[in-house]
């Protein structure tokens, strides 16, 4: 019975949980470790699942907490180097070395901006933009109020807007 729930309820969340972990630890291997630890722990406590009100939100909270602990424990700061596995380039038609470099810079700039968000702003931004979760789902997953979710998202997007509006339109962009 629990094995069934595991496959039906929790494993489908795997990718979303992974992206949340990744958003915090910023490394593929670390994020996979976090996800694995959380899932194994969950599995070993399957007898307690019935007692948890919202299992999915609980999963998100566990991942968030474990990922944050990882960072604290290892004093892992987001490195300046981008995880090479994720350098995807858009604008395929107009590629040139100069263009690639510009895109890389743009990506770094945005990552830096996200890194400078407060913890709540960053997590809310991620859960909304990456996973498309509703404000209520986000509130439950992070154990914060819905109002705080809205405020955090507003501020995060505002910072993005300011960052991007600060540049005059030049040919490189």
């Amino acid at each position: 019975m629990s094995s069934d729930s595991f496959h039906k309820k929790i494993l489908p969340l795997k990718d979303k949980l992974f992206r949340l972990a990744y958003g915090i630890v910023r490394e593929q291997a670390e994020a996979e470790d976090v996800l694995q630890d959380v899932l194994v722990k969950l599995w070993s406590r399957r007898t307690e699942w019935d007692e948890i009100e919202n299992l999915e939100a609980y999963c998100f909270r566990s991942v968030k907490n474990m990922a944050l602990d990882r960072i604290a424990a290892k004093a892992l700061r987001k490195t300046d180097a981008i995880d090479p596995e994720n350098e995807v380039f858009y604008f395929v038609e107009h590629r040139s070395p100069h263009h690639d470099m510009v895109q890389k810079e743009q990506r770094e700039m945005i990552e830096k901006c996200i890194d400078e968000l407060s913890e709540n702003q960053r997590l809310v931004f991620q859960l909304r933009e990456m996973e498309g979760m509703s404000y209520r789902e986000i509130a439950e997953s992070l154990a914060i109020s819905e109002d705080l979710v809205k405020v955090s998202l507003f501020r995060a997007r505002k910072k993005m807007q300011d960052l991007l509006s600060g540049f005059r339109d030049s040919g490189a962009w």
Partner: protein
Amino acid sequence: MNSEYIHTLLNKYWRCETSPREEQELRDFFSGTEVPGELVRYVPLFAYLNEERSITPGSDFDDRLKTAIKKSEQEQQYITIRIFAPALRIAASLLLVLGLGISVYFISKQYNKPYFAETYHDPNAAIKDATYALIKVSNALQSSEEASMQTIQLIDELEIDWSSLDSLSSTLPEVPGKGADAEEMALDKDSNDTGEEIKEAFRQEEGDL
């Protein structure tokens, strides 16, 4: 996609009034090639979001997860032994500490005797010595008391007129009052006389110089 529509949508986005579906529309639009000039600046943001959305755990993740779960199940079985192991370790360290403590105690017993010279084992001798010490102290106090008395006597013999030295009495202003007036007037008179004496003494001294 209508440019005006996109502008409206984008403004809604900054105000956090968009639905998830509308946000997807924005992402699709900005990843395309028809982005008007003034909106090009926002392309990196939506492109970044698109990329991040497609991050997934590695392809071998599921297998590794299964292995990890099996391993954790096995570990559960060994828990009984594991519970006792820490207890054994604690017992061993306790014994060690005890042993060390006892040896230290015995060793210190041997070496500490010379340092206990100041305590007495014979109560009579203790009383005698204590009494001796106390007598010495009281003698010392007495002689200092006598010395103080002698000093006081010497000072008395000088017969200093204290009232003239008392600065307060010579500067009392004439205050119209009731009973105290007579007394004050008397004091005033007195000090005036001795004031003259002192002035005389000072003049003499200055003369000597």
